[in-house]
C-alpha cells in the first residue's frame, strides 16, 4: 500500500541517514586498519580487527564488567522502581509534588551526576561516608571490589525514576477488575501481587527492563567521572574501553569491531527475548 510507505518515508529516510549511514560506515571501518591519526585511505584488513578484539582479554573483561553492571543496576532499579511505583500509586497526599521530585534525577546530564557522586562518596570530603562514620561504618565505595557496584548505585539513583515512570504507567493501566476479583476471591495482598499484578505487569516490565538495559549498556560518564576504569580494570566498561581504543589510542577500526561485537550480542539477546515474548503472548 503506497500510503503506508509514504507515511513511513520520513522515518526511514532520517534513520537511513542518521543511523544507517554511520552504522554502515562504522562497519566498513571495522574491516580496516583505520587510525584517527592516519589521513589517507585505510587498508582493508578483513576480519583481523574482529580476531584481535575477540581474543583480547581486556575486551572480555569489559564485557563482563558491563554485564555485571547492567544486571545489578537494572535489577535494583526494577525492584525499587516497582516498590516505589506501587507506593506512589496508592499515595494520595502531595501526589504531583512527590512525583515531580522523584523524577528529577533523570533530567541531570550524567557526567554531572557522576561528578556529584564522586564527591558525595569521597571518604574524606564527602557527606555520605561522613554520615556513615557517625554510625561507625567505614566503606570503601571505590575500592577494588566495590567500585563497580558503586557505579551501579549511581545508575540506580539517576534512572530508577525512569522505571518508576514506566511502571507507574503500567500499574495504572492494569484493569481494576481482576484485582478486585482477587480480593473477593480471598487472596492476600502478597498473593494478589505475585499471582495477578506481576503477571499482568510483565509486558510493561519487559519493555522497561529492555529500555533500561540498552541504556545502561552505554555506561560511560560515571566511569569517566569517578574511576576511569579502575582500580585495576575493575570498572572498565565496554563503552569506556571503546572510547579509549577509538579516541584516546586512535584505533578506530578496532573500536568499531568492538562495537559490532556488542551489537551482535545485544541483537541476539533481543531476538531471543522477542521470540519468547511472542510465544508467551500467543499462549
Amino acid at each position, binding site marked *: 500500500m503506497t500510503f503506508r510507505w509514504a507515511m513511513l518515508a520520513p522515518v526511514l529516510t532520517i534513520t537511513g541517514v542518521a543511523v544507517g549511514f554511520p552504522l554502515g560506515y562504522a562497519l566498513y571501518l571495522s574491516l580496516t586498519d583505520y587510525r584517527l591519526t592516519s589521513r589517507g585511505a585505510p587498508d582493508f584488513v578483513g576480519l583481523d580487527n574482529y580476531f584481535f578484539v575477540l581474543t583480547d582479554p581486556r575486551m572480555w573483561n569489559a564485557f563482563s564488567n558491563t554485564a555485571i553492571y547492567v544486571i545489578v543496576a537494572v535489577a535494583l532499579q526494577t525492584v525499587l522502581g516497582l516498590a516505589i511505583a506501587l507506593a506512589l500509586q496508592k499515595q494520595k497526599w502531595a501526589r504531583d509534588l512527590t512525583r515531580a521530585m522523584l523524577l528529577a534525577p533523570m533530567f541531570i546530564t550524567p557526567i554531572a551526576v557522576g561528578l556529584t557522586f564522586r564527591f558525595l562518596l569521597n571518604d574524606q570530603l564527602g557527606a555520605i561516608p561522613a554520615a556513615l562514620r557517625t554510625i561507625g561504618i567505614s566503606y570503601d565505595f571505590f575500592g577494588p571490589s566495590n567500585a563497580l557496584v558503586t557505579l551501579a548505585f549511581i545508575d540506580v539513583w539517576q534512572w530508577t525514576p525512569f522505571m518508576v515512570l514506566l511502571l507507574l504507567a503500567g500499574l495504572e493501566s492494569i*484493569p481494576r*477488575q*481482576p484485582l*478486585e*476479583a*482477587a*480480593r*473477593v*476471591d*480471598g*487472596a*492476600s495482598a502478597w*498473593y*494478589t501481587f505475585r*499471582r*495477578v499484578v506481576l*503477571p*499482568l505487569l*510483565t509486558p510493561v516490565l519487559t519493555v522497561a527492563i529492555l529500555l533500561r538495559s540498552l541504556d545502561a549498556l552505554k555506561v560511560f560518564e560515571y566511569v569517566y567521572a569517578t574511576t576511569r576504569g579502575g582500580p585495576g580494570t575493575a570498572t572498565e566498561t565496554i563503552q569506556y574501553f571503546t572510547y579509549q581504543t577509538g579516541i584516546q589510542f586512535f584505533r578506530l577500526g578496532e573500536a568499531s569491531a568492538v562495537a559490532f561485537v556488542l551489537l551482535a550480542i545485544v541483537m541476539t539477546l533481543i531476538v531471543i527475548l522477542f521470540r519468547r515474548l511472542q510465544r508467551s503472548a500467543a*499462549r
Partner: protein
Amino acid sequence: MAEVRFNKVRKEYGSTVIVDDVDIVFPDGSLTVLVGPSGCGKSTSLRMLAGLEEISGGEILIGGRVVNGLEPKDRDVAMVFQNYALYPHLSVLENIAFPLRATKSRRADALRRAQEVADSLGLGALTSRKPKDLSGGQQQRVAIGRAIIRQPAVFLFDEPLSNLDAKLRVETRFELMQIQRRLGITAVYVTHDQEEAMTMSDRMVVMRDGRVAQTGRPDEIYARPNSVFVATFVGSPKMNIVRGAISDGAFISPTGSRLAVAQAPARDAVVLGVRPDDLLLTANSGGTARVALIELLGPRAIVHLDAGEDRLTSVVEADRLSELTVGTSVALAVRPGALHLFDPQTEHRLPEV
C-alpha cells in the same frame, strides 16, 4: 448460606450521597435482584456488601455478623463481575481454582476441584484455554465457576449477563438460576434490565437515586407498582403514562385524547398508567388516536399511536394487523382491572377503590 441485611446503609463520595439510608433484607437462600436505572447506586451497594467500597454509614450484616470493617476475603462472599474480571494470564482451570489456591489449598486438590466444577459447567474441554480464546458465554461460565468453587455464604452478581448477546443472555440467565437453586446460596443480583429482574428474582428491589423505590415479588411489583417511576421502569414495552381527568368512564387528556376506562371513579387531575398489553384498540374512524408506526415482533406487534400530543403504545396480536395499518384511526380502551392511577403531585400510586 446466610441472611444478608442492610441497615440504614449510606455511601458518600465527598459531599455527594450515592446510597442513602438503604434498608434491605435478603433472606437466606433467596435470589434477590437489585434493579434500577443506570447510576442509581446498585453496583455501589453490591460493592459495599463485597467489601470493595467503604461504608459511610449504617451496617451491613452477613449471617448476623456486622461486616463493616472486614476485608473482602474475610466476608465469605463470591462475586461475578459485569465484565467477568477473569485473570487474563491464567487458564480456565487456574481461573476457577484461584480462590482455592489463594486460601492455601494444595495445588493438586484445587485443580481437581476446579476440574469438577468446570465439568459441571460444561467447560470440561476448554480448561487449558486462556480467557481471550473463549466466547462471551464461556467466559461468563468461568466467572461463575470461580464464584461457586468456594461454596461461599453469599453470591454477588453485578450485571453478569450484560455483555452477552440477546440469545446467549436468555440461555445463561436460565443456567444461572438453576445453579443458584441447586446450591441454595443466598444471591444478590444487580441489573439495569428489568426483564432480567422480572424473570430471575424471588424478590426484586427497585432502586432510584440511591434509595429503595419498591421491594417485593416481581409479579407483585409488575401488578401494583407503587409509583410512576416503578411503573414505567418495570415492564416492556414500558407502561403508557398520561395526565388528565376521569369522568363518566372515560379518561380525557388536556390535548383531547380519550381512553375508555370502565368502573373508574371520577377524578379531576390524575396520572393514568396502562400497560401496552392492556391498551385495547378498535379501528374506528371517530377514534381520538391514529396509528403512527407498527413494529412487528413475530406473533405480536407493537403499535405506536399518536393520541393528542401523547405517544402511546399498544401490543396487539399479529393477526389483527390486517385491520390496523399506519394512519388508521382507533378508539382506545383500558382492559378492565388493568388501570393504574397515580397522584399527579407525588406520583405515588393512589389507593385502590
